[in-house]
């Protein structure tokens, strides 16, 4: 990938990933309000806002982060399966996105129920999922920054191949 394009992809990847984290934090605030508040109107509004947030912010950002993250990894020598931290990050992101897509349907139903005129304070909220999602995204962010070392067997093989090629090129130049 050319350096200029690589930088653009990386910038987009960081923006979508951090945006996803921020959107989940905003969602968590609404979720806590929906569960804790005793004011009926406030709880009803929280459920509707949760549905809007998840549909128009969290899901698009999550899908964009996954797709652009994969493009970013494949476009650099980090690769997708060469380093454990990239692999773990990919798995966590895929699990979080899958749960998110399933949870979005539940939130839509909760928002519809909250807007139906019944008492929305009886609805259970979705705190375990939003807290779990936030924890996973924090772990993913920490992995991205610290990049703990560790090559996979595939990554090690690729590295050996590259070093072998470099040695051949050096000896060809020296000859």
């Amino acid at each position: 990938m050319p350096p200029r394009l690589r930088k653009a992809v990386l910038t987009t990847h960081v923006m979508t990933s951090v945006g996803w984290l921020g959107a989940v934090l905003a969602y968590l605030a609404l979720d806590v309000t929906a569960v804790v508040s005793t004011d009926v109107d406030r709880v009803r509004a929280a459920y509707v806002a949760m549905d809007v947030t998840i549909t128009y912010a969290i899901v698009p950002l999550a899908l964009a982060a996954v797709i652009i993250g994969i493009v970013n990894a494949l476009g650099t020598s980090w690769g997708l399966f060469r380093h454990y931290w990239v692999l773990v990050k990919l798995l966590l992101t895929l699990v979080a996105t899958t749960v998110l897509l399933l949870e979005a349907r539940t939130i839509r139903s909760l928002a519809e129920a909250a807007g139906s005129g019944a008492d929305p304070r009886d609805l259970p909220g979705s705190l375990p999922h939003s807290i779990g999602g936030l924890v996973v995204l924090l772990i993913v962010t920490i992995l991205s920054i610290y990049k703990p070392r560790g090559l996979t067997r595939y990554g090690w093989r690729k590295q050996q191949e590259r070093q072998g090629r470099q040695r051949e090129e050096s000896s060809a130049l020296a000859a």
Partner: protein
Amino acid sequence: MAEPTSRSDTDHGTPPGMPRWVKVAAIFVGFLLLLFVVLQLTGIGGEHGPGRHMSGDTTPTVGTPAVQNAPAAAVIG
């Protein structure tokens, strides 16, 4: 994301083993999954998935048909 640099601990002739942080993380995730399975089997954790959110005597029934058909969500964290 800066490009990776070659590291001395990966230059040996044998493939590197799994790092300790990966093993610890794998054990932790395994423990969480086991805990989830035990909670589900014993019934302590209640029903998992979208259906749980809509159960209860006082819960309005709007939107429940779609919810009941939804698959159970995987566990995280």
